[in-house]
């Protein structure tokens, strides 16, 4: 299953619902383009919902890091929502779990944006 994204707005926060695989190639590019497009429109409060992401490789992890730093460098915030066990475990062993602001409840995640 290839990577797909759709966006919605909740109280000034852009929620990006991601599904499929974030891997080297198309999956990583789709995520990168989605974040860049939001930033170009001035939408800098971004909540990545990874609940339907079935697989992520090191390239996908790198893309999450890139999205995080790109948004932060432009004065925005990027948080992660609804990690699957696989993604959660990957972020744990790569020590990135504490780098990202990871949430498991959408409403509280939205409220957590400044």
């Amino acid at each position, binding site marked *: 299953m290839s990577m797909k994204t759709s966006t919605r707005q909740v109280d000034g926060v852009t929620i990006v619902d991601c599904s499929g695989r974030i891997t*080297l190639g198309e999956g990583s590019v789709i995520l990168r383009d989605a974040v860049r497009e939001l930033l170009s429109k001035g939408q800098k409060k971004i909540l990545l919902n990874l609940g339907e992401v079935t697989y992520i*490789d*090191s390239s996908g992890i*790198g893309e999450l890091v890139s999205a995080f730093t790109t948004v932060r460098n432009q004065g925005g915030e990027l948080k992660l929502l609804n990690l699957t066990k696989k993604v959660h475990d990957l972020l744990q062993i790569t020590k990135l779990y504490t780098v990202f602001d990871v949430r498991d409840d959408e409403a509280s995640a939205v409220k957590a944006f400044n």
Partner: protein
Amino acid sequence: MTELRVSYTLDSTLETVDSAEQTASRIAAESGFDEDVVMQISMAVREAAVNAVLHGNAYDPEKKVKLEFERTGSDLVITIRDQGKGLDLAKIPDPLAPENLLKTSGRGIFLIRSFMDEVQIVPSQTGTAIKLVKHVHGSSGNVKEASQ
């Protein structure tokens, strides 16, 4: 457990990466590993294939990636060989070092080592071979050989 030896010679493309991952997943599942371990093995093979295609062979259409699976009574052994200039192990950074945490690449070898029981990386001037071992339990049986 039925013993198995199978090898594939693959082009230096992204399709090879997906194919290697899928083949590893199938063979690992057939070897009786549980779902989580199958995912670990397939991801390790994917990362090794990425290294071979991108960093080893640099997408060169003249260079191939050789993928070998050997299942014995006690181990699943997977070897991925490329025809690149040879990986410089000294140049692989520690992705867990604070200064590297926010780098966007450099986690492949780390993930491979995290997921497999044994990892041997043998670089040479004619390419890099990476051998991945996962220990299994079971009895040996017939040996199948195949090549593509």
